[in-house]
């Protein structure tokens, strides 16, 4: 089993290495987002005469958002690449199982995330003197919980792709943005309308970004919120896993060749 997972990780690694598009994931978008939100934060702080201290939380939010954005994107786009390349039959006519492919994607996306976050943190320090380590050890549970949620969305999207193929391929890079407003990435929960606040309670990432702001403002973390985020993410991950399994069975009944 381990050699097959390693084989799949190698496949995704080579694909990243040989693709300029995939390599830009590591530096292009982090730099663009940091430049955009850093300047926006600086402008808001200057406009408020220094009363509003938002720059740190915006930059920190950009970096943490990558935990969801990258993991979801890497999982979904890797599945799409297999469909575009007509390579799924090569994979699944071998002893590789859907679970092994899933594990390889999860491990690979996490490794890529660590690298992308490191690059983004470096640029945040370089551009604005912001040190992500200001979050202390909290950064670990924050990132892990956000990654967990990113995996569940990525796996759900993969299930949709196995069911409907490239007809719905844009969901691979658009779905995550559906959750962005309710993840409270750049603003607190009370900014949303009542219905939006209720909806955000079911989005596990919202608790993390709220706690991120809490740490930056007061140094305090409400661990109950992190546990709540974990519980919701685990439920979503299980549901996404079941959906992926069933979607894959549907794809096998139709024939993997029909996905091309």
């Amino acid at each position: 089993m381990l050699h097959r997972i390693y084989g799949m990780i190698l496949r995704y690694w080579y694909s990243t290495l040989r693709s300029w598009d995939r390599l830009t994931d590591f530096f292009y978008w982090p730099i663009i987002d940091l430049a955009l939100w850093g300047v926006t934060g600086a402008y808001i702080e200057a406009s408020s005469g220094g009363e509003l201290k938002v720059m740190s939380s915006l930059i920190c939010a950009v970096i943490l958002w990558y935990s969801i954005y990258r993991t979801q994107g890497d999982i979904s786009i890797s599945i799409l690449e297999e469909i575009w390349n007509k390579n799924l039959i090569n994979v699944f006519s071998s002893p590789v199982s859907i679970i092994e492919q899933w594990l390889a994607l999860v491990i690979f996306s996490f490794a890529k995330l660590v690298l992308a976050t490191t690059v983004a943190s470096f640029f945040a320090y370089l551009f604005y003197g912001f040190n992500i380590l200001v979050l202390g050890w909290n950064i670990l549970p924050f990132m892990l919980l956000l990654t967990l949620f990113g995996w569940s969305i990525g796996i759900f999207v993969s299930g949709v792709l196995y069911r409907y193929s490239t007809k719905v391929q844009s969901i691979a890079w658009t779905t995550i943005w559906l959750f962005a407003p309710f993840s409270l990435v750049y603003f607190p929960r009370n900014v949303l309308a009542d219905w939006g606040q209720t909806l955000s309670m079911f989005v596990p990432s919202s608790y993390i970004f709220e706690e991120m702001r809490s740490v930056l403002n007061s140094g305090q973390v409400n661990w109950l919120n992190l546990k709540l985020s974990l519980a919701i993410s685990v439920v979503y991950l299980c549901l996404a896993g079941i959906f992926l399994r069933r979607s894959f069975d549907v794809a096998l009944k139709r024939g993997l060749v029909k996905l091309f």
Partner: protein
Amino acid sequence: MRDILQVRDLTKIFGGFKAVDAASFNLQEGEILGLLGQNGAGKTTTIQMLLGVLIPTSGEIEYFGKPFREHRGEIQEKINFSSAYTNLPFNLKVKDCLHYVSHFYDIADRRQRIKEIVSQFDLEKLLNRTVAALSAGEQTRLNIAKAFLNRPKIVLLDEPTASLDPENARVVRTFILEQQKSEGLSVVFTSHNMEEVEEVCDRVIFIDGGKITWNDTPYNLSLRLDLNTVTFMLDNPTQDMTRILPKHALKWEVHGTEVSIKLKEKSVPGLIQDLVTNQIGFHGLTINRASLEEYFFKEKTPGVKNAA
């Protein structure tokens, strides 16, 4: 020889369409089995079910005496395939593809095996090229090389030589036949090239409308057709042939001084006797039994079938 693949009542229905209809056949150890049929006959659907990338509506597939459904991973270790409708990732280099695919299988001497395969399929010069940069023939060669990476006991080859030039197609055929002899390799082989099937396959299955219409050796299939082609040369073909033809020929063609006559086996001696009796001088006589291609067209063309 023992059966290493047994297929029983294999059926696949898409919506209301029966793509494969209760197909039953076997593959023996060391045997090369040809699947023949027109486009849409059900060959590729059958191959996909044999690979485990399409779930049958009903029926059973057993490899090495074990149900495929329950021993999928274990069986997939021992089989492999090459097909014209799949590709290895376009943006990867050839060496990347061979390397990562080798990890899908439990290969003890992975690096050595890749070296062997690269050498056997003459891929040395292609190793640092991306799959996208390969010609159609080179991609096919890579796909076939991939199919032999794990030293499979059974290989499913779906039109493996479709985009190869005659020389490379010959190399692939020779390799398959060598593997059959040296390793006892068993092969399920589909192709539209009937001469190739005749050369390579020990047994042939015809599929038509998802059903198996015939299952026999190429030789027996041609006997069943009972159609022979007698070719010889005459000084004045048109004039001479009109004297003897109506009695014997099903169909005849004249190209310059060469005459080709299609007729049943039992009519061949009569034709030659008539040539002699009528004092028609001939030379360069050859008699060929029906080819698979002729059988194929007889099965698909009612007019020819009736004539035969």
